[in-house]
């Protein structure tokens, strides 16, 4: 972890190395005194052709990532504005309705971005999160769309059990645990749909709330994955869309802290995978949520079925 702790929390992910709109997305309260910060350019590191598999899955990034002494914070923040048109950078943000993406939405609004939010209905058991996503966008006055990708459901049912040409009703898989580990490749599918919308809008970037902490479980949350996805998305169209993951190096507790600073109404976010009326308090995401509040020292307003 050498070097990483020297970074300001959340200051980082300008994965294309161009340092344009990422900086303001990262931390709107950056010191404006021109103090030089160390910026981690994961893309540069990734482009060096390093075989990350040699480094072990979880620890890899931190040992091998290179820190690049980059331009001053002031420059970064200034370059965050689109000087050509004078308009704020426009971003399509993947909003699940959970804690992380809701904090990210408010974080980026505070950073002066023009936001649109995309949610994805993939037939998840915890569809309640989509209602929270919608309510959050109404509260913040953000345009919100939900892409219906529930057609992926047959993949989750095991081959041959479901007629692939018949639309599967929602809630069919109530007994399945729709964690990322069961929804294969979920982040990539959501990112590709978000990129499609961003390209269609001629937006500047796609943002999502990948964060540090569960990389070994979910390979599609790692910094190298994000950097490689950014590279692919930029090649997917003549209009180049950047990929921003401002929380990529932050823990969930740090996200809670950031949310508290921003006054995020945490009770209006949904994490539980169980799909009940209140958070169950027992599933993996509930445990992670509760732990994050504890670590952050922020009061947890969530009502849990089973108290901690």
């Amino acid at each position: 972890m050498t070097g990483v702790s020297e970074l300001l929390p959340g200051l980082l992910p300008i994965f294309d190395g161009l340092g344009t709109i990422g900086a303001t997305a990262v931390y709107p309260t950056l010191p404006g005194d021109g103090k030089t910060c160390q910026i981690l350019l994961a893309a540069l590191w990734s482009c060096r052709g390093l075989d990350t598999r040699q480094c072990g899955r979880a620890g890899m990034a931190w040992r091998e990532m290179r820190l690049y002494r980059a331009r001053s914070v002031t420059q970064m923040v200034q370059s965050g504005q689109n000087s050509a048109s004078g308009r704020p950078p426009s971003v399509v943000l993947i909003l699940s309705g959970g804690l992380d993406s809701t904090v990210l939405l408010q974080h980026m609004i505070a950073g002066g971005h023009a936001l649109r939010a995309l949610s994805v209905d993939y037939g998840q058991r915890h569809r309640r999160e989509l209602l929270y996503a919608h309510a959050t966008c109404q509260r913040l006055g953000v345009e919100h769309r939900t892409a219906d990708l529930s057609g992926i459901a047959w993949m989750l049912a095991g081959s041959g059990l479901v007629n692939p040409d018949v639309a599967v009703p929602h809630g069919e898989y109530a007994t399945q645990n729709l964690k990322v580990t069961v929804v294969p490749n979920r982040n990539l599918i959501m990112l590709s749909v978000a990129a499609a919308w961003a390209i269609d809008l001629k937006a500047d970037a796609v943002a999502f709330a990948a964060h540090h902490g569960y990389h070994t479980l979910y390979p599609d949350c790692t910094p190298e994955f994000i950097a490689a996805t950014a590279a692919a998305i930029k090649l997917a169209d003549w209009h180049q869309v950047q990929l921003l993951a401002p929380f990529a190096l932050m823990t969930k507790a740090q996200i809670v802290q950031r949310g508290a600073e921003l006054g995020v109404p945490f009770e209006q976010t949904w994490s539980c995978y169980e799909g009940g009326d209140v958070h169950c308090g027992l599933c993996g995401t509930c445990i992670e949520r509760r732990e994050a509040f504890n670590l952050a020292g922020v009061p947890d307003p969530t009502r849990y079925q089973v108290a901690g």
Partner: protein
Amino acid sequence: MSPLTPSPRPKAVVLLSGGIDSATCLAIAHAEGFAPHALSFRYGQRHVYELHAARRVADAGHAVDSRTIEMDLRQIGGSALTGDLPLPTDRTTAQMNSSVAPTYVPARNTIFLSYALAWAEVLGAGDIFIGVNAADHAGYPDCRPEYIRAYETMANLATRFGTEGTHALRIHAPLIAMSKAQIIRRGLDLGVDFGLTSTCYDPSDDGRACGHCDACLVRLEAFRELGVADPVPYRGDRAIPGRG
């Protein structure tokens, strides 16, 4: 196990639209020894007839499984394929190449490949076939070789396959340097029945091609170049294939 028991064919996911390119791609996957699993998409395209063609092509092309993903991209895109924009007709090659095709669906291949990758992971397949080719490079940025390579790099980081290092996940684009005529030639050599395919962006309900959209024009030209009759039915003045 008897030493004579043939080792099972490794599984591969093949993106199958029901057109010439993907039909040939499917045949190549099978010829290379894979057990093809065909994946098609109903994404709000106006030429939904191609899905019938995809099913026929899959059945004829030794696909061991063929599936369709339903998704609605109309909320996030406005191109002629999914929206209500008029389709251009009777354009010259120069006109077709002058800009991003009006039939372009943003990031379509990114989305398709992402689903293919998901299915590959479920199946335990390490290979994905996609029929992108040289003819498409100009109009479709996500048909370029550099895009496919970037996607492959990312795919190896996105999945357990890649990150656990058991073996690399490969995106095969066997047609990537071929012209349309070369693709048809290769398909014919592999026994592909192009009469089962559908290329037209605006076919009639019974699947007869218009003969005037960009896709029909490119197809007709390629068959003409080969001196081979296009076996699919056309309507109206294109009933007899070939032009000029």
